């Protein structure tokens, strides 16, 4: 009983610390793409820890099923959303950080020159 409370409190605290770390990354990082990676990864881990802590506190099968649904959804959509927003940013020529190594991107663009309206006009 007591151990369960302590564990769930620890999980919730750790999760909110990860949220804080991700927000500090949002402020401090130099570039949209790096900020996007920080926001996606750390936020997913933070939400995972917080929801696990909440489920441990309730200790109930139905609540665990619900939490599993939320987690499945978040794990599906977070990489998807990050990918699509980054792709839109590349297409709309958002600035890269000047220390980023862009050779692979240039090579990719040159290779696929003809079919690369990767932006696809509808």
């Amino acid at each position, binding site marked *: 009983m007591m151990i369960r*409370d*302590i564990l*769930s*409190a*620890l999980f*919730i*605290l750790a*999760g*909110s*610390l990860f*949220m*804080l770390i*991700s*927000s*500090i990354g*949002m*402020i401090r990082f130099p570039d*949209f793409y790096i*900020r*996007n990676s920080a*926001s996606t990864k750390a*936020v997913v881990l*933070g*939400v995972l820890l*917080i*929801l696990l802590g*909440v489920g441990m*506190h*309730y200790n*109930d099968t*139905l*609540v665990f099923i*619900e*939490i599993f*649904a*939320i987690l499945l*959804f*978040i794990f599906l*959509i977070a990489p998807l*959303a*990050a990918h*699509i*927003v*980054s*792709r*839109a*940013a590349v*297409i*709309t020529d*958002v*600035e890269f950080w000047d220390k980023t190594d862009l050779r692979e991107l240039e090579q990719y663009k040159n290779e696929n020159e003809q079919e690369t309206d990767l*932006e696809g*006009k*509808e």
Partner: protein
Amino acid sequence: MSLFTIAAYVSIGIISISTLLTLIRFVKGPSLPDRVISLDVFSANLLAVLAIYSVLAEQKAYLNVALIMSLIAFVGTMTFAYYLVYKRNKPQDDD
């Protein structure tokens, strides 16, 4: 006031600070995609606060609200991404 309640209040405070930092990025973000992802992080923070508050209020229904919140945030992000691409392609179509 048990240990768990104190931990929950402290984490709500931490998440509030992180929401404030996210809002700073939202206000000064140099480009539109920056604002889109900061809204994404904002909604994730909101989801976390809802989950913790459902423990404090002993109301399991708030977890359903969290599920729907994450759904709506995803749809919003997708819509903004498509809007960005559309806004860039449109002048070319007019030429």
